[in-house]
């Protein structure tokens, strides 16, 4: 009976404690003002224990501080927070240790505001109130912390020493790593101490701090003591893992030394095991320790704790580094060993990575030609896209606008279309985060349910005597349901160049607004490169919705390429990427942006001599018009130098006038019925000088002035 009553009483008491705990630990509101009131109710609830109410005043104070979040520091008003903390000091039935805690809360509040003297006064009061060893220690620690925060190491150290606090902790806080090292080694070497205490000191040695990168010290320490520590716990070498991954990840001597330690730890995760093994292979190869590498690889090849891809790589290494293999086929070896790897089917990517890993190890070992062989084998496994081809057919008059293109038979011929169906590479997130040069792609990494397959995009190319035309047509297979402001339809990004060593023109067209950006320049104007000029029409674009899709036309004038007109069958490079909310799809298969190696070939067709002459004829008209405009301009190269006051009449008469006279003679020949011979001659001799007239004069001016200042008397 007594037992039953007492057990029931115990149950009731337990329930009360649990309920009380639940009440006080109930989550306060997230909103700081609401939290203030919530804590106030607790703090003023005299039915709660004093300790609980003191804590509540402290939390209320913290909530008051949070109400100031977002303000400038000088506008933050902490008066109400201080008031709450002072209310805690008045809690009637608080025990001395509870009150001491209240004083420490207030002290910490002052310390946060750098009011150190006031803080220390509070801690002194706490020490007065609570003479217990725990209370004294708590107050002393708080005092030391305040001294440290104020930058007074001497006072802080005096407290630590007098109270017997952990000096390693203090020296670590102060960054006195040499002292930390000394103290730790003293403790580690004290054979009278429990092994756990010695291990703790070992693990707090300064070599483990992230700022310290002294490999030699770390290795010496471990070589000396780790054998002892693993006797009681074989996972202790895992302490090396952070240094392995971070500080010394590029030091082969460290990696080769640390790997066996780490591999001996039973709790090394499978991911980390793979990392350690891979790094070990590479390190041993770079150190020229081939026999050690072979031994490590052989062990790894049958280590079931390693992943299949690492075991596969290990087997490849054993094969590749064996003396009898040197002239063997990397591809055959890779295939052969993959087949024998029956228990798990490796993905193509895993096999490729493993083969690359072998190539890397061979290169680190100084075996370049073999490394190249294995690298080639890996590249062949990737099966890159064949280069895409976009034909650009000469037309006597290409469609000049969207309506013209939509009505043109050209776009009925899908054999001449380029399909944007090659997914963009894997670095889109990083690109969008970091490419400050170009915003406005309106792209996002693949997400939600929107897939690139929801639309299809094709591009056609044609040229005529004016220039090169591109027509893009995107058709939505399922029109987007969600509209957020303007319909988000992405953009086209693209590049056009007349040759791999020539500058390329960049474009970015926002869809559906049609806003064009071409401001990313790969060259400025010079003798062999011209800037696009939207106002003068050498770059034009237009975009509009049509039916179930969006149509865009893009034009580049031949003036930009007059000195490198394509021939029939000539190949330029062109790429375009369709950016959407689902990522990107491209014509050429770009793995990254501005990647000429992956651009499509733009093949010109129909550019027989007659058609090329038509282009030249048109260019003559444009060039002479440009020259005449410059010539007429009072501020242009002629008007300026001829000016008796602002210019240089001597230079004008000697250099400018003869050139202008010659160019004017040629200009007179530009009639509508120029003979073919005249066209060829004027194109060859006059067009460059007309179009580059100002640059010609600049060069002459440069020589003139240089000669003046370096003439030999």
């Amino acid at each position, binding site marked *: 009976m007594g037992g039953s009553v007492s057990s029931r009483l115990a149950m009731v008491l337990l329930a009360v404690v649990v309920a009380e705990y639940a009440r006080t630990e109930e989550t306060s509101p997230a909103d700081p003002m609401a939290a203030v009131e919530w804590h106030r109710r607790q703090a003023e609830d005299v039915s709660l224990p004093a300790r609980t109410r003191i804590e509540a005043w402290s939390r209320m104070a913290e909530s008051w501080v949070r109400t100031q*979040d977002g303000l400038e520091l000088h506008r933050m008003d902490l008066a109400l927070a201080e008031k709450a903390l002072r209310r805690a000091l008045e809690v009637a039935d608080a025990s001395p240790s509870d009150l001491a805690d209240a004083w420490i809360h207030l002290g910490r509040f002052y310390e946060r505001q750098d009011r150190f003297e006031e803080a220390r006064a509070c801690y002194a009061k706490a020490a007065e109130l609570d003479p217990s060893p725990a209370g004294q220690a708590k107050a002393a620690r708080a005092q030391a912390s305040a001294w440290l925060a104020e930058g007074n190491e001497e006072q802080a150290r005096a407290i630590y020493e007098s109270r017997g606090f952990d000096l390693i902790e203090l020296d670590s806080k102060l960054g006195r790593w040499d002292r930390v090292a000394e103290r730790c080694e003293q403790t580690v070497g004290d054979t009278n101490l429990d092994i756990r205490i010695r291990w703790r000191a070992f693990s707090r040695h300064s070599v483990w701090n992230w700022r310290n990168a002294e490999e030699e010290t770390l290795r010496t320490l471990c070589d000396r003591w780790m054998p002892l520590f693993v006797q009681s716990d074989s996972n202790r070498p895992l302490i090396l893992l952070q240094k392995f991954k971070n500080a010394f990840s590029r030091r082969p001597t460290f990696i080769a030394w640390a790997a066996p330690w780490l591999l001996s730890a039973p709790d090394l995760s499978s991911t980390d095991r793979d990392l350690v093994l891979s790094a070990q292979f590479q390190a041993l190869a770079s150190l020229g320790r081939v026999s050690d590498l072979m031994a490590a690889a052989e062990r790894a090849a049958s280590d079931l704790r390693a992943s299949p891809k690492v075991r596969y790589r290990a087997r490849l290494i054993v094969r590749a580094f064996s003396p009898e293999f040197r002239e063997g086929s990397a591809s055959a070896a890779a295939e052969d060993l993959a087949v024998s790897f029956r228990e798990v089917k490796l993905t193509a990517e895993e096999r490729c990575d493993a083969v690359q890993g072998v190539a890397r190890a061979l290169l680190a070992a100084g075996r370049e030609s073999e490394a190249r062989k294995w690298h080639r084998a890996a590249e062949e496994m990737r099966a890159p896209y064949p280069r895409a081809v976009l034909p650009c057919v000469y037309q006597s008059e290409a469609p000049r606008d969207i309506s013209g293109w939509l009505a043109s038979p050209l776009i009925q011929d899908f054999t001449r279309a380029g399909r944007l169906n090659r997914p963009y590479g894997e670095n889109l997130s990083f690109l969008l985060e970091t490419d400050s040069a170009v915003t406005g792609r309106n792209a996002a990494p693949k997400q939600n349910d929107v897939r690139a397959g929801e639309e299809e995009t094709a591009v056609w190319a044609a040229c005529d005597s004016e220039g090169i035309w591109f027509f893009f047509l995107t058709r939505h297979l399922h029109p987007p349901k969600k509209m957020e402001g303007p319909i988000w339809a992405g953009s086209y990004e693209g590049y056009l160049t007349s040759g791999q060593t020539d500058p390329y023109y960049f474009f970015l067209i926002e869809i559906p607004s049609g806003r064009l950006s071409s401001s990313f320049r790969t060259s400025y104007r010079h003798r062999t490169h011209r800037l696009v000029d939207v106002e003068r029409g050498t770059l034009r674009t237009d975009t509009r919705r049509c039916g179930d899709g969006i149509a865009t036309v893009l034009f580049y004038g031949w003036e930009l390429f007059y000195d490198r007109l394509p021939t029939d069958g000539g190949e330029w490079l062109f790429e375009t990427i369709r950016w959407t909310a689902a990522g990107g799809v491209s014509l050429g298969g770009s793995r990254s942006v501005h990647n000429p*190696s992956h651009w499509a070939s733009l093949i010109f067709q129909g550019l027989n001599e007659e058609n090329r002459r038509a282009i030249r004829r048109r260019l003559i008209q444009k060039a002479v018009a440009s020259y005449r405009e410059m010539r007429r301009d009072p501020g242009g190269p002629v008007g300026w130098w001829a000016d008796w006051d602002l210019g240089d009449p001597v230079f004008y008469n000697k250099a400018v006038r003869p050139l202008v006279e010659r160019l004017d003679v040629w200009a007179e020949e530009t009639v509508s019925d120029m003979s073919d011979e005249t066209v060829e001659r004027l194109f060859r001799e006059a067009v460059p000088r007309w179009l580059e007239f100002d640059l010609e004069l600049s060069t002459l*001016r440069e020589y003139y002035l240089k000669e003046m200042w370096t*003439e030999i008397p």
Partner: protein
Amino acid sequence: MGGTVSAALRLGTWLSLFFRSDPLWVQGAPPSLEWWEVPALSDVRRMFDTVPWDGIPGGAVRVIAAQGEYEPASFVLRSDRMRENVRLSVSDLTQEDGHRLSADRIDLRVVKVWYQNGNAWHSYFADPGSILVPELLLHDENLIRVDRESRANYARLDEPSGPRYVWISAPRELDTGFDPFTAPFADASTLQPVTLLPGEFKQLWLTVQIPPEAKPGLYRGEIVVSGDDPLRVLIPLLVRVLPFELPLPRSYFDLDRPFLVTLMGAWPPVPLDHPAMRPILRNLRAHNVLHLDMACRVNMPEEEIAGRAALVKEMGFETRPVFLGWLSWVGAHDGTPLTFDELMSVRRETVRWRQLCERLFGHTEGIVGLGDEQGAAWVAKTRPIWRLVHEQGLRSELAGHRHYLVKAGHMLDVYPAAVSPSDLLETRPWNAVGHTWMSFYANQHTGVENPAFVRRQHGLLGYLSDFSMVNNYEFAYGPWNDWVQDLYKPMVLAYPTCQGLVDTLAWEGFREAIDDIRYATLLKTLAQAALRSGDLDRIYAGRKALLWLALVNGATADLNAVRLEMIRYILLLRKGLENGG
């Protein structure tokens, strides 16, 4: 203007020289070796088979430079036969009255053509392809071996056991790393003998350093090309020292506003006592990096911060204002408001920065950065931090996008903007507020090997668009392998070795960019003085100079001609000053 008529008469000679196809030989030169004087800073990518159509066959190499200035010049050689061990040297240069410019002041180097990624010469993006491009300026052309069969670059390590070449152009997946700071890898200090392959063009480069105290006038000397055949060719070298020094650059829109010149990431990643540290810093300063970011953090050991400051002062970098480094990060990357504790930690840190700045430099005009390309909400919530920075007299820095204007246009002091150097509309509102140094970055970043492009972007284009700073991303210390990165190529302007830097064409272009701004600054300063003179002729002269400069189109003008025209106006204005007393 002295010499105008005779110069004009000679112009006809220039024109005919420009168009003639046979070379002009100096006495004793065998016809099998030709040379052309070519523009040093040119968009022309000079390869083994690039005929120097823009050069003067057999022309004298001519340099026109101010006192204290570094100025480049270039020429191209071609031999019709294989010639090994060809030696080039420069004689002392002398004036008619005997004043001498020592040959030590002339650094002669080979322009090395090597493989870079498929975007070489044009952009900073990565590409797995490889093409040949001229880039490196080497004293020892064999420091880098280029294998045209395997399309690979190799670096020579001079190990105690003998030279060894390592492959430094491996694909990214293969690259095993090459640490140029620790490997026994360094260029020679003077030009070593070169090899001329039959029929191939080889470009040579001179950088002339004019002493500040050099007597103005024309100096003559020659470049001696000699070899074992026997071979002895003398290429005339003419150096005109101008009668003035260049001032530090100032902004185009406000001559009272210093123009800051720095590059992100330029502090060398080696210990203070590394043998390469001082040579690198000297090189940066010589290439017109005027304000070097010390890249410090407040929790660095004090001796490290003090050591960096001492080097900044010793090497002659500008120290007012001074780029100190970075504030410690606090808070979230979004608009989550900053807390009391976070701001208190910032205040403590800014107090410490101010104390350091005062102690090390004697003022509080230290620039501290926080964040990079942050969103609008973050910018707004960070204002309390910038206020704390300003309360200590320090300056705030943040690189990023256009929305900074409407969120922090009143608080950002140093703003590298993700815009193009031609974006005049971007600079106007910032300059209207008036306290911000603004530069472009990213369009383009560094990495382009074309020196003319680098010159224009970092020079007059941005200057005339009213930017007040150059602070592009970045000055990367390698790697030497152009293929190791995925999205961007290494943005290298000069390549590190264990003893310093190997210069490049682009790096010379950078220096000339800032020199262009310094010339323009001098022109404007003299023009302003002329405007204040009260003399109508001088006033008109000043206005003419300013008018001419205002009409220069930074995007299209021939910068070589612009430079010379600036010099002409400067000489005219100086003459006016002297005559006016």
